[in-house]
C-alpha cells in the first residue's frame, strides 16, 4: 500500500480521534493512579523529610509533587473537573474556604486523628476543623508573632534593649506607640512600624473574634475590628509608620523594606515567625544586631498551613499514615531548621537543636519567645471570607496612609464595601 496524501490525512485524523476518545474515557480521577500523590508548594515541606518519606513509604508509592505557581488554582481546577486530583494536598491558612465543601475531602477523625490531636497546639488543631467538627486539615506550621527590634540601636539611644526589658516596656500597643515616639526623638528619621497594615493585622490577630462567629454569622458589632483600625490610624498619626504598604509581597515596596532593614531605618517591627528567613536573607550585614521579644498587645498568630486528604484517594488510611509521619514531632525540627516552618507541637519547643543560640539574633534563642506566644494564642474562628474582608480594611488603611484619605470616611467606605461584598455572596441578605 502506497502512502498517498489522502490516506495519510484520513489515517492521521482517525488516529487523532482515537487518541482523543481514549483520553476522554480514561481521564484518571487521581493524578497518579496506583500511587499516593502529595501536592505541596515550594518551601512548603522539607525536602529532606520528604525524601525520607518516599523511601519509608515505598510500598504506597508516595509521589511528592511540588506545584509551581499557585497550588490553590490547580486544586480548584482539579476539584471542578474531578480529575487528576492529588491524594494528599497542602492547604493554606484560608482553609476555611473549603469548610462548606468538605464532601471533597476525608474527615481525618475517621482515620484516627483523635489519637494525634493531643500532640498539637489545640487552637491550631481546631483551625483545621469546620464548625460542624469535620477535621479537614492536619497542622503543618504556625506563625506566632513577635516584636523584632535592633538591639544595638535601642542601646545606642539609651532605650531598654534586652528582650525582657523591651517586652516589659511595651506590654500594650499604646505603650509601644509611646515608646516609638520617645525612640524617634533620639533616632530621628527612623521607624518602628512597617505600615498601618501590620498594626491592623497583628492587632486583630490578638482578638478572640474576627468577623464571623462559628455559625458563619457576620458579627455586626465590629468593635474588635474598630479597635485594630483605630490603633493603625493612631500609629499613622503619630508618624510611627514607614508606609511600606504591601511590604509582604515580592514587589517594589519590599525592596524599600529590605533596604530599611539594611540601613537601620526600620528599628523594629511586629511580624510572624516566618519573617526570620527573609530578614536573614535580605539583611545579612545586620547579623547579630537583631533581637526578638513578645509582641505588644499579647499573643497572636498569622499564617500557617495544613495537609488534607481528598476523598478520591483510594487508600486514605495509608495516606493518613504518611501525613502523620511527615508532620510528626520527630520531623518538625527539620522543617523548622530547613524552612523556618514553626512547629505546631509544643513538645518540640524543648528540642535542643531549636534552643541553640542563634548568631543572627546575637546568641538569643528566639524559640523561647515564639513558643511562649504559640502556646498563648487563643482559638479564633476564621471564616471563608476573612481574607477578602481583611484586604478591604487594609486597602482602606493604605489609602489613609499614602493617599491622605480621611480615616473616618475610609472606615465607612470599607465597611460598606465589606457588607456589599457579603450581600453579593449571599451571606447577608
Amino acid at each position, binding site marked *: 500500500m502506497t502512502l498517498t496524501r489522502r490516506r495519510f490525512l484520513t489515517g492521521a485524523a482517525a488516529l487523532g480521534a482515537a487518541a482523543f476518545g481514549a483520553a476522554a474515557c480514561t481521564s484518571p480521577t487521581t493524578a497518579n493512579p496506583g500511587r499516593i500523590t502529595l501536592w505541596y508548594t515550594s518551601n512548603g515541606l522539607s525536602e529532606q523529610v520528604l525524601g525520607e518519606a518516599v523511601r519509608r513509604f515505598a510500598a504506597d508509592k508516595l509521589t511528592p509533587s511540588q506545584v509551581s505557581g499557585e497550588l490553590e488554582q490547580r486544586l480548584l481546577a482539579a476539584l471542578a473537573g474531578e480529575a487528576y486530583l492529588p491524594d494528599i494536598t497542602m492547604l493554606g491558612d484560608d482553609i476555611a474556604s473549603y469548610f*462548606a465543601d468538605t464532601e471533597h475531602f476525608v474527615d481525618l477523625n475517621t482515620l484516627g486523628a483523635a489519637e494525634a490531636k493531643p500532640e498539637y497546639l489545640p487552637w491550631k488543631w481546631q483551625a483545621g476543623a469546620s464548625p460542624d467538627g469535620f477535621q479537614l486539615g492536619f497542622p503543618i506550621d504556625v506563625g506566632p508573632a513577635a516584636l523584632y527590634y535592633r538591639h544595638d540601636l535601642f542601646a545606642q539611644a539609651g532605650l531598654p534593649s534586652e528582650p525582657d526589658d523591651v517586652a516589659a516596656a511595651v506590654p500594650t500597643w499604646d505603650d509601644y506607640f509611646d515608646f516609638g515616639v520617645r525612640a524617634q526623638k533620639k533616632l530621628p528619621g527612623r521607624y518602628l512600624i512597617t505600615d498601618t497594615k501590620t498594626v491592623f493585622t497583628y492587632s486583630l490577630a490578638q482578638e478572640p473574634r474576627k468577623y464571623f462567629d462559628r455559625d458563619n454569622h457576620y458579627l455586626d458589632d465590629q468593635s474588635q475590628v474598630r479597635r485594630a483600625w483605630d490603633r493603625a490610624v493612631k500609629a499613622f498619626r503619630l508618624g510611627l509608620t514607614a508606609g511600606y504598604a504591601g511590604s509582604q509581597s515580592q514587589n*517594589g515596596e519590599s*525592596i524599600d523594606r529590605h533596604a530599611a532593614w539594611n540601613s537601620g531605618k526600620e528599628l523594629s517591627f511586629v511580624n510572624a515567625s516566618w519573617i526570620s528567613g527573609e530578614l536573614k536573607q535580605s539583611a545579612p550585614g545586620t547579623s547579630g544586631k537583631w533581637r526578638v521579644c513578645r509582641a505588644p498587645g499579647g499573643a497572636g498568630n498569622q499564617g500557617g498551613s495544613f495537609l488534607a486528604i481528598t476523598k478520591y484517594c483510594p487508600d486514605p488510611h495509608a495516606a493518613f499514615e504518611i501525613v502523620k509521619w511527615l508532620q510528626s514531632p520527630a520531623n518538625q525540627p527539620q522543617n523548622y531548621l530547613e524552612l523556618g516552618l514553626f512547629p505546631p507541637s509544643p513538645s518540640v519547643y524543648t528540642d535542643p537543636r531549636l534552643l541553640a543560640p542563634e548568631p543572627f539574633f546575637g546568641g538569643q534563642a528566639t524559640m523561647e519567645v515564639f513558643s511562649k506566644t504559640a502556646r498563648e494564642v487563643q482559638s479564633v474562628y476564621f471564616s471563608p471570607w476573612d481574607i477578602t474582608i481583611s484586604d478591604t480594611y487594609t486597602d482602606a488603611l493604605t489609602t489613609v496612609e499614602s493617599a491622605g484619605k480621611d480615616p473616618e470616611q475610609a472606615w465607612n467606605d470599607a465597611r460598606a464595601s465589606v457588607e456589599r461584598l457579603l450581600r453579593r455572596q449571599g451571606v447577608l441578605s
Partner: protein
Amino acid sequence: MTAILPGTAPASAPARHAPVSKRKRWRYLPQYLAIAPFFLLFAVFGLYPVLYSLYLALQRWDGVGPMKFVGLENFRFLLSDATFWESIGNTLVIWVMSTVPMTVLALLIALGLNSSVRFKGVLRVAYFLPNVTSIVAMSLVFGSIFSHDFGILNWVLGLVGIDHVQWLNDPWAIRGAISIMIIWRWTGYNAIIFLAGLQALPTDVFEAARIDGAGPVQTFFRITLPLLRPVLLFSVVMSAISGMQIFTESQVLLGNRGGPDGAGMTMVLYFYNTAFADNDFGYGAAIAWGIFVVVVLFSILNWRLVQRPSRGQVSQVKEAVR
C-alpha cells in the same frame, strides 16, 4: 474582475450545480479534515470557554462547591460596582498616558534610524529588545527603580534637586509608573514599524519637495506625517488592543488589589482578582463580559475614528502623487 452579464449567471449556475451531489461533497473531505484541527481546537479551547463563562456569569460559585443560579444578579451588581467603573477609568487613563508619549518617542526614534546612522542593525535589535523581555522580570526591575526610599529614579531626581516621588503609593504616580513601563516596552516595537513605514514611502515625493524648496520641518509635517498616517493608525489600534488588556505590569508591581486607592486596578486585574484571588468565579465571569462590552464599544469608536480620516487621506495621497 470579469464582468458577468446579468442574464448569463442564472443560466449557468444550475447547470454547474447539478452534479455537486453527495459524491462531490465527499470529495472535499480531505480538505475539510485538513482544516478541522483548527476548528476542533477552537471549539474546545475557544468557543466552549466563552459560552461557559456566559453560563458562569449567571451563577454564584466559589470554585469548589455546587453552583447556585442567581440569574442576572451578578450583572446588576456589576452596573453599580464603583470598583469596576474605576477600573475602566484607570485603564483608559493609563492607555492615554502611555500611548501618546510612546507614539511621539517611537516616531522620533524611527526618524533617527531612517537617516544615515551607523550600526543601524544593532540599534534596531536594541530598540526591539524590551518587547521580548519577560514582563515579570521587567516589573521586578522597575519595582526597584520606583521604590520610594532607595529607588534609582528617586535618587536621580534627588541629584537634580527634585523631591522624592511616592511612585508606588501616590495614585497618580502609580499610573505614571505603569505608563512608563508600557512606554519602555512598546516604544521600540512601534519605532521598528514606523521605520518600515518610512522606508516604504516613495522617494520622488521627497525629491519634489526638496526641489520646491521645502525645509526638513515642513517636509516632515506636510509630507512624511500624512503619508505615514496608515502606519500611525495601525500602531494606535494595536496599542488600543493591548492597552485594554493591561494586567501584568500592575499585578507584579502592585499586587492583586492594584495598590493604594486601587489606582493601578485595571479592568483585567479586577477580573483576575475577583475570580482567582477571591474565588468568586461567577462574578468574575460577569466582569469578563463587562470588559467585553467595553472593548467592543472602544473598538467601534476606534474604527470610526480610523475610518473617516483614512478615506480623506487616501485621496490626499493620490493628489500628492499626481
